[in-house]
């Protein structure tokens, strides 16, 4: 079983991110379970979304305390929270932050990537919604599933121009990790 924890603020699309990520695993034939945990019910409030995935249906309903993978959608959350709490020794984290942002301290076998996902999103989507660029980076950094599954998942979620722009963002995120 693999466990993914997403750190974001309400309104930044973390639930959609979890749903797209879960769907990519579903297309691969795995059994994902994606779920949110809301904080205060208002825009901007810190919140989490989670994905658990296994080869058989997932029964466990608790939140995720020891994630294999972390997606940090909003780097400002790292100031007030320990987003790395419980982070597995060999885990992989993707942080959405400007290029040149120092990589936070982490254990030797953990891999932590800074991805300028909002900048990629501004160039591909025209809005600072870095979620799909981060998912592209996730696919490259973790090799959890083929990139095409993620693209298929995004195409199921969005249509027309929005889908095209998000696919571009995924590819850019993917390439960013491959080049780094």
């Amino acid at each position, binding site marked *: 079983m693999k466990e993914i924890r997403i750190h974001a603020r309400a309104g930044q699309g973390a*639930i959609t991110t*979890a*749903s797209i990520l*879960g*769907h990519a695993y*579903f297309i691969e034939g795995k*059994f*994902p*379970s*994606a*779920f*949110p*945990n*809301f904080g205060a*019910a208002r825009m901007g409030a810190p919140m989490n979304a989670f994905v658990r995935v296994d080869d058989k*249906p*997932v*029964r*466990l*309903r*608790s*939140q995720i*305390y020891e994630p294999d993978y972390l997606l940090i959608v909003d780097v400002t959350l790292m100031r007030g929270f320990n987003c790395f709490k419980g982070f597995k020794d060999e885990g992989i984290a993707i942080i959405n932050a400007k290029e040149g942002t120092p990589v936070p301290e982490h254990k030797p076998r953990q891999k932590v990537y800074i991805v300028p996902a909002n900048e990629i999103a501004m160039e591909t989507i025209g809005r600072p919604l870095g979620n799909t660029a981060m998912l592209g980076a996730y696919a490259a950094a973790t090799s959890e599933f083929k990139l095409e599954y993620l693209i298929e998942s995004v195409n199921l979620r969005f249509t027309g121009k929005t889908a095209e722009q998000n696919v571009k963002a995924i590819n850019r995120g993917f390439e960013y990790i491959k080049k780094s």
Partner: protein
Amino acid sequence: MREFLEGSRAVAEAVRMCKPGVISAYPITPQTHIVEELASMAARGSLNAQCVNVESEHSAASVVLGASAAGVRSFTATSSQGLLLMAEVVFCIAGMRFPVVMTCANRAISAPINIWNDHQDAITVRDSGWIQIHAETIQEAMDMHILAYRIAESPKIMLPVMVNMDGFILTHGLETVDVPTDEQVEKFLPSYKPLYKLDVDNPISLGLLADPDYYMETRFAINETHKDVLKLIPMVNDEFSKVFGRTCGGLVEEYKTKDAEKVIVAMGSVCGTIKDVIDQMRAKGKKVGLLRIVSYRPFPIAAIYQALKDVPKVAVLEKAVSLGSYGPLLAEVRSVFCGKKKAPAISGFVIGLGGRDITVDSIKEVYKKLTTKEITEEYIDLKPELLEESI
């Protein structure tokens, strides 16, 4: 067909296939995507139902009562404060014997304001006469709506059914579900044929005054019908399995109870976590099990007795309280063994109120606390530091 769906959307899909004629809801917190999706289906034309957007939950319940009185299959969904505001009409729907189906996305009750999951809403109207069933998974929540109409509209039953699914955990979670086909649902669920209805050509009166000469018999009759529901649920569940190729819960589910020395009794989605803990503990030789209560009303007394009579230690784990007394589920499970020669030591634990997360460790702690000494009411994962000031 297998799909990766959000719980609320899955339920909306199941309700669409049941072809209700009237859907009424109050579209504000605490509401779910269920009625939002149904309204959207009606607007797109994939569902031929009248969606009535009302000004309160009291009105939502009144509209489905009225629609059902006119002989139309009807549906509503609510939770928490919404259910409480409906409460007056909830009792009327059962009293008037209307086969309404309602989803309750189980959530905590104010004050303080809390939007998260527990079972206090459903438990608070447990004595209303409604049949109450609890889903563990999104698949089950979806399937139970199809089953619910079949039971509710059975001519010998004619009672409303509340399908309970844990708020957020199941309503806002996404899982792989096997979506039934319209043909399967059509085969399993015939169109609704009311025994009586409001009809201008053949006028009747419904919900009249029943003075002391008549009232008691109406309550007796509903209680007797609940006994029939206990017999009907397993039969309808068998038929469900034949059509859909999977079961839909039944009255109770026994998970590794046969040789168990310690069994947890619980309802809803937490049972998934408990099953995982059981497998972990059994791998280390610990004989533990789970009795999942699927049908809370009617309360399956005989099935619970059979499942627990040879178990030495039982923990009733519940997401609701009866302030000023024992936990509601604890009191009922203990009452099953009242006057019996052989009874397990039955302890009671409260857990997950207002959405406090229930972890693997929380469940392990419950098993650990089960000794020969009965515990009457212990709160799991309580924060003593938050209590100091008030004490």
